[in-house]
């Protein structure tokens, strides 16, 4: 079993790296007890869920099994948890309301997309990557991130962005979703079990920036001080 894992890591180091990099921010949150802060507790829960999904997908990939169903299901969960952090950071009530409003809509849309893309849900072997959800998720997240940055520079409520954990988290998310925005729709056509299409470097870009975002999350959490977290 371990042999297949090691073999996969050696074959696909770029894809495997973010799976294990998940541990870095998780351990930092645990060590710094940053989970006492609501926003970082949500990040903690998201990272643990992501680690679990990534490990399952890693296991399936190393055993040459289709793991796309987990990826498809993780999209709405990822959106709800990552955008939830913005709920606590937005001061504007209407922004919060729109954020809350987007959750059921996006979750419903994702479910529809999974069903629409895959005629048979029970057929795990022939699952395809969703057609629209990942792109819509990227667009929505980029919108919330830009809105948050706009609010930040307008309100001047954070004296030093470099020591503010959520700025690093936001930057990580911005880079990840920016790298993913144009590649996400292509994945539906490229990542097919029986008709694999080689898209070269493009395939690795989201994984590279997933690792970068996890490192940025870790830098942000490292800035966390128990009594100085300013909303």
């Amino acid at each position, binding site marked *: 079993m371990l042999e297949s894992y090691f073999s996969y890591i050696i074959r696909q180091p770029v894809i495997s790296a973010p799976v294990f990099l998940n541990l870095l921010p998780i351990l930092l949150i645990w060590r710094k007890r940053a989970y006492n802060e609501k926003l970082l507790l949500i990040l903690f829960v998201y990272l643990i869920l992501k680690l679990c999904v990534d490990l399952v997908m890693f296991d399936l990939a190393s055993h040459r099994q289709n793991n796309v169903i987990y990826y498809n299901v993780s999209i709405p969960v990822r959106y709800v948890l990552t955008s939830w952090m913005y709920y606590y950071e937005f001061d504007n009530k209407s922004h919060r309301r729109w954020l809350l409003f987007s959750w059921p809509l996006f979750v419903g849309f994702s479910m529809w997309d999974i069903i629409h893309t895959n005629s048979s849900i029970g057929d795990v072997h022939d699952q395809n990557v969703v057609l629209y959800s990942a792109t819509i998720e990227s667009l929505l997240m980029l919108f919330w991130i*830009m809105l948050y940055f706009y609010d930040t520079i307008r309100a001047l409520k*954070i004296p030093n962005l470099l020591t503010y954990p959520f*700025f690093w988290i936001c930057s990580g998310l911005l880079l990840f979703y*920016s*790298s993913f925005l*144009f590649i996400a729709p292509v994945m539906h056509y490229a990542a097919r079990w029986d008709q694999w299409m080689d*898209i070269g470097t*493009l395939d690795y870009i989201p994984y590279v920036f997933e690792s970068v975002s996890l490192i940025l999350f870790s830098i942000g959490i490292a800035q966390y001080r128990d009594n100085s977290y300013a909303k």
Partner: protein
Amino acid sequence: MQNNDELKLALLIASLAMLMMAFFVIAFVMYYQKKRFEEEKRINDIEKNYNRLLLDTALNSEETERRRIAQDLHDDIGTMLSLTKLSLNQLSKLVANSGDEKEESIMKKSQSLVEETILHVRRITRDLVPTTLERFGLMEAIEEFIHKLEEDNNLVIAFQSNTEEFPRQGQKLELTLYRIMQELVNNAIKHASCTKIDIVLEIDEEMIGLRVTDNGVGFDPEKIKESNLAGLGLLGIESRLAIVNGTVQYEQPAKGGSSAIARIPVNPASGNKPEPLHPFRRERVNI
């Protein structure tokens, strides 16, 4: 196949462009935030300096006005009272020659009233302009102030300093310390119902510290500042200190009463020996 490669290239370029934009957004937010904070800080500094200037001007005007009143009291009323006393002395001799006891008694009463008024005018003049401070320095002025207070009140006021020869400081600084000491002691007498006041004046290489402690009822400075009129004295102290980059701290000692500590950076008097100031010279005071 060629179309496929072109599509991949287009996607790669689009993704890289998107990533560059993301990096640009992050850099822009950091840069813009920094610039805005610097701008805010600059405006705050200008506002602070302007307020300081206003305060300084207001205090200068207050001191100038005090001096003008003292001068008028001395030059006009004081002179007239002295002349009145002189005339009364001459009249008293005439009355004494006439031998009328009733007239003599009225005359003596008038003389004593004039003398008392002269003393009052002198006291008011001294209160308005601390001439001892200007001539002999802070320690002597505080000692004189204490001496006068002890005469008028049933109070024990102790004064000590960590140096025998307190070096002369800039005129503004000495006056600020003196007025703060006056305000704190007057507050203690008026509001604290105390029987003992300790004044400590300390100086080191960098700072001058003035501590006024009483054994009265004590007070919460924050609550007093919140109430509009009652906090004027304390606000006045803070305003005076703001001009000389000083700070004030209030404490409530465990044994009761209250303690105020004012700290001001040392600002020695300039090399030229300050010209002795006379309270009754008509000039603008630059504190």
